[in-house]
């Protein structure tokens, strides 16, 4: 098994996710891209775990999943609220922090 391939996939997924976060306006898509980045990290963790022959990476991957689940709960709630008040799911419309 060649770990480099897994790591390369992980890096690619992360790059795609990051690009999506930066370029897409739709909050849902941005959100999914964030998930993509998290899962890219998970893949890297698991690969390193396998590579090093211990379970620490696997454990961290579970933690990341828990955090991601929690984040989805909160994040989706926020997105729903923003959509309700602004009739828009575009992240660029929620720019009140500027003021």
């Amino acid at each position: 098994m060649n770990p480099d391939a897994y790591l390369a996939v992980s890096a690619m997924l992360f790059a795609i996710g990051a690009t999506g976060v930066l370029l897409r306006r739709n909050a849902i898509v941005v959100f999914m891209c964030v998930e993509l980045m998290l899962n890219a990290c998970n893949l890297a963790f698991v690969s390193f775990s396998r590579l090093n022959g211990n379970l620490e990476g696997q454990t961290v991957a579970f933690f990341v999943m828990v955090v991601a689940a929690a984040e989805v709960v909160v994040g989706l709630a926020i997105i729903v609220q923003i959509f309700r008040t602004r009739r828009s799911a575009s992240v660029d419309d929620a720019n009140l922090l500027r003021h």
Partner: protein
Amino acid sequence: MIGSLPASLSGLAAEGSTAGLEATPASGAFSLMWVIIALPLLGALLLLAFGRRFDRIGHWLGVATVAGSFAVALWLFLELSAQPEEERAVSQQLWSWIPVGDFQADVALLLDPLSTVFVLLITGVGLLIHIYSVAYMDHDRDRRRFFGYMNLFVAAMLLLVLADNYLLLYVGWEGVGLASYLLIGFWNQNPVYATAAKKAFIVNRVGDFGLSVAIMVMFATFGSFAFSEVFAAAPDASETTLTVIGLLLLLAACGKSAQVPLQSWLLDAMAGPTPVSALIHAATMVTAGVYLITRSNAIFDLAPGAQLAVVIVGVVTMLFGAVIGCAKDDIKKALAASTMSQIGYMIIAVGLGPIGYVFGIMHLLTHGFFKAGMFLGAGSVMHGMNDQVDMRKYGGLRALMPITFATFGLGYLAIIGIPPFSGFFSKDKIIESALADSWWVGGATILAAGITAFYMTRVMIMTFFGPRRWEDDAHPHESPSLMTGPMILLAVGSVGAGAFLALGNRLELWLEPVTGFTEPVPPLPIWVITGITLAVVGIGVLIAYLQYAARPVPDTQPAGSLVTVAARNDLYGDAFNEAVFMRPGMHLTRTLVFFDNKVVDGAVGVTAATIGGLSGRMRRLQTGYVRSYALTILAGAVAVAAAVLLVRL
């Protein structure tokens, strides 16, 4: 020149007088000392605090308090003179004023021969002038307020002379300054008068500054400002310190006594009602400087440099005032210039040291009588002439105002020093002492006596003799007896005070324990000096006669020579002050304002603008777009990762 005094004499004087009298605590009659000050103070409080309720009797209340004060003062004077000579100083500790550790300021009074003389002068002449004012201010609807201020003045002046330490003296010093300000500006509905009051107050502040710094230096040097402790410690202090204190006290004296260079306020102070000019700006307050120097004799005797400065100030002012007096057409201003000049005499005398203190005080007393009398006479003339003050509009008044003429005339004979009137005794003694000290001081005093004779004769002739140059609506008449009475009593003083004080050396013996006394040894026999002085006085009178009696007096001011014009303008004292102090001062303040606006405020403004501008720019980074923040985070993460990798490599 002071240094030319035989050393033994100075030493003797220093030993004899610096310690002064040992004051004993007040008991018996002397425990009433505080009443002398309290009565007029109470009068002032009642008259000023209770308003129009006292309008009807206020003036008599004012007179009564001063009369009570005078009665107590007279009683205490008799008690004091009954004491043996070495026990003629009584102090009364009223209460502890500011007790803070080593700093002990007490409200304590000191009645000794020197302060007694002043208390009698202030309450005595003050009483006469209060009585006079009852009639003089009859038509003024603010007469009660006037008497309130006058009582305030008397109380403050009494505090000044009765204080037994410099700090309390300073309270009285400021008090008389305040009363003087209030009274000069009594008719402050006239802006010129209000300005004159402000001028007097501000010029006096310069002198007050000198006194306050002198007190600070005293406290720093001696750790006390009680007269007894300061004078006892003075011989141990360095001459430099004593000279500094002496010069600061001289500055204070210059302010209060209208001596050059702080003379400019006195002529304008004539804006006040005439009784004020008589009491405050002739008889009492303006002599406070003479009192201060005499009181501080222990310091001045040990500081020849300061004494020399005192004499120089005196000589300059004496001639300065005399020259101004020759050209003034306003009768009150002529008298005011004369006051300056006569106080110059006193300042010279007290600057001469133990040979002069007594004569300075003697001249102060006789001057208190004759100058107050002449001011009241001038007030009486103005009263009869619709408040006209221009002597060119007078003339020939002697027939219509015989009492005013007689009292003014006696004052006139006294001031020019005709024997046996009082000015003769006091002024001649000063001239003798001045000659004993040095030729130039003596010569200046004789010259000033001649000029005095000239300008006083001029006043006399222009007012009472010659053709009538009255305005059409003038109906001169003699003043009521409430006014002439005090004038007559003061005239009696003008005639007799000098002889009373000088014959039998009464005043010398009385004051010697406080001021010390050394017989002056003039270089000429006394009858020669008297002869020369009288001859110079005669020449002065003659010139005035030729100029103002033998020739008609124009009823408008003629062009006049360069000197006359200068004297009419107070020898450009105001112009000098304006050019040397006011304009540079204004430029300085303008520069400071400019500096404040441009540099201080500018620096603050530029800093604020820089930060504001910078933050305005920085603010643009905060777009509010989540994606841009994400980019920043990513960039940061990449940078950190890159840094870690670089370090690894």
